[in-house]
């Protein structure tokens, strides 16, 4: 638990913060992509007068950037939807795009780096071909192994982006890959999906509330390596509180739905992480039920440690424990792939560098 988690648990704590804490806070919030969220928390709790002016400026700067990427994401979504509508291919907006398009509370502060869309499995090949006919191209280079990985093992076709606009589009037909240890029946997701209006008044289909939360949980705890994921935990908390406020029976519905979709384990991780790290206050009854899906105690403890290492480093710049890194990496693939495939995948990945090229200073002003 670091300074950022303390703040999320109890925002008024900043009234007691000294300069040294503010200086630790800014890089943590920046790294966790929570600058915009923090600005809203300061405003909601009437704490702005305690926040140093230059930090407020940094937060507002981040929010300006967020507004821009949201506009570009919605624009991209409309362009994709227009093409798919003509072929009568339905689609569901997922994750950040859904929050923004349906004006859920995170829309105020939620940045996005790409858009995620769910289409029916029989239509995913057709969708990819359709988009590529109209100017979308593969985003990045993928060798045939990567293609195989994406298409056959995962739940995604390799990401696309429009050749002019450049926003990355990720197409999915399920929330958990077919080869993973979690099997979700996508028909159930479509069955509970709902249609809303986006900010420009156009229709947008999103997952039902429980499914949206379960997707958040599955995405963070079953797919990625948790890096930078505190934002997703905060999303979970914000959406949970929002839906509970709209419907006092929400906790029960979520529990039942998790069982129906086989997502009890990721829900356990999401709820326990949000409680420990993001100030979520679930009812005791709900917690008890959720904990029934926890792994055996030693695993649960290890996971709690790994999650904390991954999402809430005590300070940036301190090297996360190398062991934690390795365990997380292996685990994230373990949850997605049966053992034989995992070995093959790890061997192949070992020969390729995954690092993004750093910024070239020749492009900078000066």
């Amino acid at each position: 638990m670091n300074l950022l988690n303390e703040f999320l648990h109890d925002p008024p704590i900043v009234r007691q913060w000294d300069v040294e804490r503010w200086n630790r806070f800014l890089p943590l919030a920046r790294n966790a992509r929570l600058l915009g969220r923090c600005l809203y928390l300061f405003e909601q709790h009437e704490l702005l007068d305690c926040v140093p002016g230059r930090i407020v400026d940094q937060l507002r700067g981040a929010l300006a950037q967020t507004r821009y990427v949201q506009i570009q994401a919605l624009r991209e979504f409309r362009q994709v939807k227009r093409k798919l509508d003509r072929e009568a291919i339905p689609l569901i907006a997922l994750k950040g795009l859904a929050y923004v398009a349906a004006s859920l509370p995170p829309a105020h502060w939620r940045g996005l780096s790409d858009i995620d869309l769910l289409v029916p499995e029989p239509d995913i090949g057709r969708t990819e071909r359709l988009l590529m006919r109209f100017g979308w191209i593969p985003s990045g280079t993928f060798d045939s192994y990567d293609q195989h990985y994406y298409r056959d093992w995962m739940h995604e076709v390799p990401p696309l982006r429009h050749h002019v606009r450049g926003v990355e589009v990720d197409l999915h037909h399920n929330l958990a890959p077919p080869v993973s240890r979690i099997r979700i029946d996508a028909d159930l997701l479509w069955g509970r999906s709902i249609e809303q209006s986006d900010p420009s008044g156009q229709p947008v289909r999103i997952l039902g509330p429980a499914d949206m939360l379960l997707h958040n949980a599955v995405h963070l705890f079953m797919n990625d390596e948790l890096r930078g994921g505190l934002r997703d935990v905060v999303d979970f908390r914000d959406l949970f509180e929002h839906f509970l406020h709209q419907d006092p029976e929400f906790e029960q519905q979520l529990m039942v739905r998790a069982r129906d979709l086989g997502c009890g384990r990721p829900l356990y991780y999401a709820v326990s992480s949000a409680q420990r790290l993001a100030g979520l206050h679930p009812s005791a009854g709900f917690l008890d039920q959720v904990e029934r899906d926890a792994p055996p105690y030693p695993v649960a403890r290890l996971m709690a440690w790994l999650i904390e290492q991954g999402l809430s480093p005590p300070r940036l710049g301190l090297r996360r424990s190398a062991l934690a890194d390795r365990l997380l990496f292996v685990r994230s693939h373990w949850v997605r792939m049966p053992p034989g495939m995992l070995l093959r995948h790890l061997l192949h990945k070992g020969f390729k560098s995954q690092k993004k090229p750093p910024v070239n200073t020749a492009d900078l002003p000066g």
Partner: protein
Amino acid sequence: MATDCLFEEFPDDVVVFDPSTGETHFVTQLPALILAELDTTPRSVAELIERLAGPVELGETEEQQILDALSRLEAAELVESEPSESD
């Protein structure tokens, strides 16, 4: 679409900001007139040409200029074409 745009007028040009795309466009007179015509009501291409022409009979080149301006506006996402019922 055009109703939400911001306009800044200069002697020979109109600069348009489209909040839905975040793009800024420099439109000279003809595209600006088209945007103004489509501001509140969608129109068919034939109707648009008729309204822009007024009492004047337009030649082929002039009609083509209108069509070209329309395609550029569509490419800039400032106007949208929809198939009509007869399509």
